[in-house]
């Protein structure tokens, strides 16, 4: 694994935009997509990431099953009714579409799971499409760990048919672009996609959730966290309606950091897991303190022998926290890199890399493409 300088294509913004990647220069830094650097991997390193992702996903599914069977929801701070939805969706094996694991990996030693963005992951269009187009133009002789696009199309064929609504906060360019890309892959799987803003989803006592044309919403992909939906005005309608949501409610367990201590409890010492605990950290050592529903690294802090050494701001400070053993990220030239490893259906499907000056990856991060030889 090596961070390399790379000459940007002179027309890179236009190249990205013609594939629907319009938010390449968003974010606080003004540069989200950064092709002035790239990452080079060996085949053995890619094999390592591929295998680790598949193994971790299997551990996660096993953990969900154990949690549901034992009713161990007490650490997830669930709103009323959530446990029933989770159980129902898991026992019915309501299918899921995708997820992204964030891994700490520096090319040596086993990749370590930092968290599993199993409900509403983004950085998808850039991983699936933008970096592939970059590869074809900049490193046509090389390969890339990236079969996200065709696996999404195949997965859509397995999980849905007919009309599917795609709900998101459409005023967010990034979210809307992500949903539009997912709808594109669904369309290629024979699905009729209908876009709707999440706030326009209607509730009709006779027809359940409906769109703006009053048509029942039978299947909906939502780029909107399940835990938010559960706590909002229509939260109590989720159990009444027949709408099938993608991702299904059981993915909430995996997307919460509250899963991390349970994964460790179920698989102590596993090479791809980090020791994790609820509540206060052990007195010695370096730990990452994470609110259980924090997003974009908000309110994550690093604690060394009881002393906070880095703290990210945010609005999740009131939530219960877990402490996870600190795993150093790959670090070069003043930047830290986290591997976003994609799972489509139950298959490992590729990676994307985000860099940040901070050891906590936040929405200030840059996306850098990769290749392997």
């Amino acid at each position: 694994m090596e961070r390399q300088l790379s000459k940007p294509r002179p027309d890179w913004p236009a190249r990205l935009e013609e594939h629907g990647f319009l938010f390449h220069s968003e974010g606080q830094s003004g540069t989200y997509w950064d092709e002035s650097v790239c990452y080079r991997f060996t085949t053995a390193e890619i094999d390592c990431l591929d295998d680790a992702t598949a193994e971790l996903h299997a551990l996660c599914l096993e953990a969900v099953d154990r949690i549901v069977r034992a009713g161990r929801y007490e650490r997830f701070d669930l709103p009323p009714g959530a446990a029933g939805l989770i159980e129902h969706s898991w026992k019915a094996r309501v299918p899921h579409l995708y997820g992204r694991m964030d891994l700490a990996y520096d090319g040596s030693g086993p990749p370590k799971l930092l968290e599993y963005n199993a409900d509403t992951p983004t950085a998808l269009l850039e991983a699936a499409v933008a970096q592939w187009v970059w590869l074809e133009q900049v490193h046509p002789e090389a390969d890339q760990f990236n079969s996200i696009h065709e696996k999404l199309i195949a997965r859509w064929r397995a999980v849905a048919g007919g009309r599917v609504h795609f709900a998101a906060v459409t005023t967010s360019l990034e979210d809307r672009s992500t949903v539009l890309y997912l709808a594109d892959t669904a369309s290629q799987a024979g699905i009729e996609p209908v876009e709707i803003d999440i706030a326009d989803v209607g509730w009709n006592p006779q027809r359940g959730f409906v769109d703006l044309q009053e048509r029942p919403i039978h299947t909906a992909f939502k780029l909107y966290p399940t835990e938010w939906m559960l706590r909002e005005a229509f939260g109590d309608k989720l159990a009444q309606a027949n709408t099938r949501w993608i991702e299904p409610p059981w993915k909430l367990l995996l997307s919460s950091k509250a899963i991390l201590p349970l994964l460790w409890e179920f698989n102590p010492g596993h090479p791809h897991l980090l020791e994790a605990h609820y509540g206060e950290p052990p007195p010695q050592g370096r730990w990452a303190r994470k609110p259980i529903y924090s997003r974009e690294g908000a309110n994550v802090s690093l604690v060394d022998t009881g002393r906070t050494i880095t703290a990210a701001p945010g609005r999740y400070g009131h939530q219960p926290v877990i402490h996870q053993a600190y795993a150093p990220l790959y670090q070069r030239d003043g930047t830290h890199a986290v591997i976003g490893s994609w799972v489509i259906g139950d298959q490992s499907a590729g990676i994307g890399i985000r860099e940040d000056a901070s050891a906590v990856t936040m929405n200030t991060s840059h996306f850098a493409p990769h290749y392997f030889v």
Partner: protein
Amino acid sequence: MLEQAQVVALRRRRSHSITLVLIASSAMVAGCDQRVSAGDIAYHDRFGSADDCRRDYGDNCTYASTGASGRGGYYGPYIVNSGSRPAPSPNSVGVEQTVLSREVASRINSGAESARGGFTSRGGFGGGEGGGGEGGGGE
């Protein structure tokens, strides 16, 4: 017979280029707004008290005297494009039919007058701050 390295490459590299259909054509179907016209039939729930109305419709209640009798009452929002007379909401005393005037239709279309499609209420999701995705660059 493929060499091991070729097998690995075939496992990960796409055999075809990426094709984007909707992004290229902007062909995704979006839900459309409820538009109404003067003369359209609409309905609204009538309530015996302001409290009953608030139980079903929150702040979207108005007091009005209607018809030649000047009979007053509390009303929920207009129910438009429902196709047929909707069932009454749980705390109402019944559903009344009305014909939209040009002025009311204009207010509904501009959003100044609250209206519901059938018994549909909206805005029950989407109260979170910012987008719902996690992991990209924008907020």
